[in-house]
């Protein structure tokens, strides 16, 4: 991603962002709410309009037809049909994405939702609905997985399990980009992108960031960087 600028409603939401993602790594996109995390992810997936600059994904321009199977995107709000069961949702999206039907059972296991397979999505808790949405994105075994705040509102056990899943996916060769506004999730990432006011203010490993700023945790590191720039 080079020189990414995104305008929405006459305002520059992203003001020149450059970075590249590495396979086998979990990259965390951190920053306060409203800093442009979602817009950046949407530009990467190719669903954001008003984009200038160069966004290349797996060798092709973002949003190109050939990428739609290879990129998985999970929005912050679960984008699934609440009046269908978990399995019905997954079967439908598998047909649309051209994924084999046996993937339905596999992804159910990956997000630990086998017990709820027959239930309507609207009867599930918020965290369970988020996992249905995540499972949908895993159907095609994407090479790039873009996750917008996937662990919001989850209990600590589930959060740990989901991060373990992200780690397994990354180890299997998937490039994973996870956004969060919770700074304590940063330590689980291999690499951090700190976004503030539409600009990247840091791009490095968590340990390196802590050493460079002399801060005790990522929250303080973020504060140190924000104040040094103000």
């Amino acid at each position, binding site marked *: 991603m080079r020189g990414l600028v995104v305008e929405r409603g006459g305002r520059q939401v992203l003001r020149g962002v450059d970075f590249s993602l590495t396979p086998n790594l979990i990259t965390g996109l951190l920053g306060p709410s409203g800093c442009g995390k979602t817009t950046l992810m949407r530009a990467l997936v190719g669903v954001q309009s*008003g984009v200038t600059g160069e966004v290349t994904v797996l060798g092709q321009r973002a949003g190109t037809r050939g990428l*739609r199977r290879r990129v998985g995107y999970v*929005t912050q709000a679960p984008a699934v049909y609440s009046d*269908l069961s978990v399995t*019905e949702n997954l079967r*439908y999206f598998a047909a*649309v*994405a*051209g994924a084999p039907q046996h993937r339905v059972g596999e992804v159910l296991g990956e997000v630990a939702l086998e017990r709820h397979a027959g239930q309507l999505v609207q009867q599930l808790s918020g965290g369970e609905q988020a996992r249905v949405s995540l499972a949908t994105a895993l159907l095609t075994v994407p090479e790039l997985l873009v996750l917008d705040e996937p662990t919001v509102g989850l209990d600590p056990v589930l959060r740990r399990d989901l991060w373990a899943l992200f780690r397994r996916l990354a180890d299997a060769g998937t490039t994973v980009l996870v956004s969060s506004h919770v700074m304590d999730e940063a330590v689980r990432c291999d690499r951090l992108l700190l976004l503030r006011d539409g600009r990247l203010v840091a791009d490095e490993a968590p340990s390196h960031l802590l050493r460079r700023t002399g801060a005790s945790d990522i929250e303080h590191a973020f504060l140190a960087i924000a104040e040094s720039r103000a």
Partner: protein
Amino acid sequence: MSARATLATTRRVLTQLRRDHRTLALLLLVPVLLLTLLRYVYADRPVVFDQVGGPLLALFPFITMFLVTSVAMLRERTSGTLERLLSMPLGKGDLLLGYALAFGGVAVVQSVLASAVALGFLGMDLAASPALVVLLAVLDALLGMALGLFLSAFARNEFQAVQFLPAFVLPQLLLCGLFAARATMAAPLRWLSAAFPLTYAVDGMQQLAGSGSFTGDLGRDLAVVAGASVLALTLGAATLRRQTS
């Protein structure tokens, strides 16, 4: 285009509808009840019942599919599922055709039921065969669906989507020839009426009521209704943007 994605969309839309018992009941029973009501309004004037009831067989599927589709598409937009679908390898044609097959199927059931009750129990007397009545009703349903799909792109919420019915459908209804014969209208109104697709839907049903054979006028009506549906679907497809702000 992929047949698998199209048929999966049809199945998904029908499953959602099947879960919603009340909507399904309203879709299928309201036309029957309204026709029954009309039968007793014109209890001593069966000819008027034929003249007004016939076109209603064309209007019910049009209006209900317009409403159901605009709300269904609006839901797809607001729930994020439309964005997800468009970020997947799904052709817009697959989505539209999937919807058309699902709602077309519902329209067949709806109009078979309404025609059966009107012709069988309420004594409605149409010259044409019931099969032609159902064919025209299904085309009208698809027209309503296509217009609803297109207009739903301009609605931000359910309030607006539902208000599109009086805004876009009532003017067509007033000028379609049901309330006043088109020949008696002032020239500008007649032109406007000629530009509205619903005029041809209602005219087609009037043709079916009056003549048992397939007339040239009926052929024109069917062609205009089908053509307008295709046009609206094409415009609707253009409103499905893969990139949004």
